[in-house]
């Protein structure tokens, strides 16, 4: 079962190592991990997408809470989950193919971020299934490079995760 876990942490040195080490030790595989500072510069927010059964999830939440630098932990319920991930894809692109790729970008609402004689870099922020889809559409042109940021997530509605 895939879980999306939001963690508010003190922005201290080593905190990410503590968190990722904990996941590894407790046998919880991390799919993706994204981290960034919040509106309070002393607090960072980590979003982890990971696999595990309910028992492991409960243990992971409790063990995370035991880390001194962890302020809050919340596993976002699937039906309240607003997820985004950013992807950058560099594809082969001849002059003849440019129009096709521009129309793919239009339909998928991706941005063309860079272009060269024989390549084009497209950028898209969306949820995971859409990104997979996008990747499939670009594959026939020959993907030169892909970078993904890892998922960030927020709860839908007015509830919020704050200190």
């Amino acid at each position, binding site marked *: 079962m895939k879980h999306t876990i939001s963690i508010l942490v*003190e922005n201290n*040195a*080593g905190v990410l190592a503590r968190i990722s080490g904990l996941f590894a030790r407790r046998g919880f595989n991390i799919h993706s991990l994204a981290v960034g500072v919040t509106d309070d510069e002393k607090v960072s927010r980590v979003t982890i997408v990971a696999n595990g059964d309910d028992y492991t999830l409960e*243990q992971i939440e*409790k063990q995370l809470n035991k880390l*001194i630098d*962890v*302020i809050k932990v919340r596993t976002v319920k699937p039906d309240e989950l607003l997820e985004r991930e950013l992807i950058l894809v560099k594809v082969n692109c001849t002059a003849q193919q440019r129009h096709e790729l521009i129309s793919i970008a239009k339909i998928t609402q991706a941005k063309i971020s860079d272009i060269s004689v024989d390549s084009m870099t497209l950028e898209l922020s969306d949820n995971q299934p859409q990104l997979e889809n996008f990747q499939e559409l670009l594959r026939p042109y020959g993907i030169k490079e892909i970078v993904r940021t890892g998922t960030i997530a927020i709860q839908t509605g007015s509830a919020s995760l704050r200190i």
Partner: protein
Amino acid sequence: MAKETITVAAAMVKALEKENIKHIFGYPGAAICPFFDELLRSEIKSILVRHEVNGGHSAGAYARITGKPAVCIATSGPGATNLITAIASAHMDSIPIVAITGQVVSGLVGRDAFQEADITGACEPFVKHSFLVKNADSIGEVIKKAFYIAGTGRPGPVLIDVPMDIQKQEIEFEYPESVEIRSYKPSFTGNKLQIKKAAEALKKSSKPLICAGGGVIAAGAGNELKTLSEMCDIPVISTMMGIGAISTSHKSYFGMLGVFGVRTAKLALKECDLLIALGARMSDRSVTDSSVFDGTTVIHIDVDPAEIGKNAPVNIPIVGDVKRITEQFTEELAPMRHEEWQAALRRSKQANAEKAAEELRGRNGSYVNPKSFIKALCGVLPSKCVICSDVGSNQIWAANNVELTDEGRFITSGGMGTMGYALPAAVGAKTADGSAEVVALCGDGSFQMCFMELATAVQHNINVKVVVFVNNYLGMVRELQDNNYGGRRTMVDLSGSPDYLKIAEAYGIGGETVTSDHQAESAVKRMAESVKPYLLQVMVDSNERSLLE
């Protein structure tokens, strides 16, 4: 108090004084020299151990006796890595130690400098928290937080790594009076509704049982446990870490459970209809088959929410301080009786005692029976005693045969099962409380992992008594090979080992060899009367087992 301009090293010493530290266990090296140099000017007594791991164990035992965080110190690199086993052992057994290590100078950190080790990184899985001090001005806050974190909630080890240049830096220093860590707020009082629910469940139970773990001792909840057990007539069993939580001679105490536990304790766990797991994590050593919980209402009381539901199923979890919750729980209850249930357990205990006596009668007289030896030892020792046990068959003999009053303590490495623990633990325990009679019970393998600490005892006049059970084997592993590997013994023969009396003599320590049961009592008496360290070399049949069946 006004701020003063001093070095970080001096500030560290001041901070320890403020934390009321009387002794530290340590080992020097270049990277921690600024600190030790300042310590010279303090009343704090420095005890030079002979290996850093032992300093960690000594600090651990010291903390177990005083109930407050104790301090061990090492230098960078190998000094720090030598501490790891002690830190990990303290972590497993929830023991509050503050370990301070020197680190190479800040500018060299990360460059694989001479004697550099990423000790905060290496210890991450084994600490409650750690600090790598990068900012000299933070030292007071770091130490204050370290003691607070180590000693509150579920106790555990905290590591502070201080680069050498930072130790020498001058700062404006004032030790903080208090700490506030917004992300660390351990629960103390138990949830009232849950406690009421637990009381209701207990009222319905006809065969309740308390399993006391190390958490009872850590919380100082022995009296509360006794009151609860006596008022509600509830039998008590314990985990290895819980031995001594209640007097072993208490009429409602039925021994240690688990793989190496006694039959009656296992029977009690199997037969009970309600279990109060009191500061016990019900680890795989205590419960091998979770089907024993089928049909049992489990009330789990623990300071650490992560222990709840981890190893045992739970019906009524209560999180908080074990002492406080036991008090709260008792307030909800009126006296009750479970005569039939207690009588059934007493019959089982009696039958087992007779069986054990029978075995003793038929045995080879040219060796000492370690089980009756331990009973004889406890008979001679004053009631205020600390028995420090090592790991191996000897640990099981000790666990199942020590006799302790409310004042007695049993100290061993439970969760980690670290060989070589007993002697340094005894050194720590005796340093913490000179009025207690402290005995280390060692296996001959285990003793050879730590006997250099005899020097520590001699140097610092620490009057510890040592018993070495000599069976010339790594007995517990040999037994495992006999049972599970078709008797193919390998790597367990201790041939080449020394005469332990001569070892003692080399350190100027007296002692004697005990070769048969009837010599035991008088030898133990001489040991107990000695005002200096004393060693008994106790010859044990190598066929002596640890498993009961």
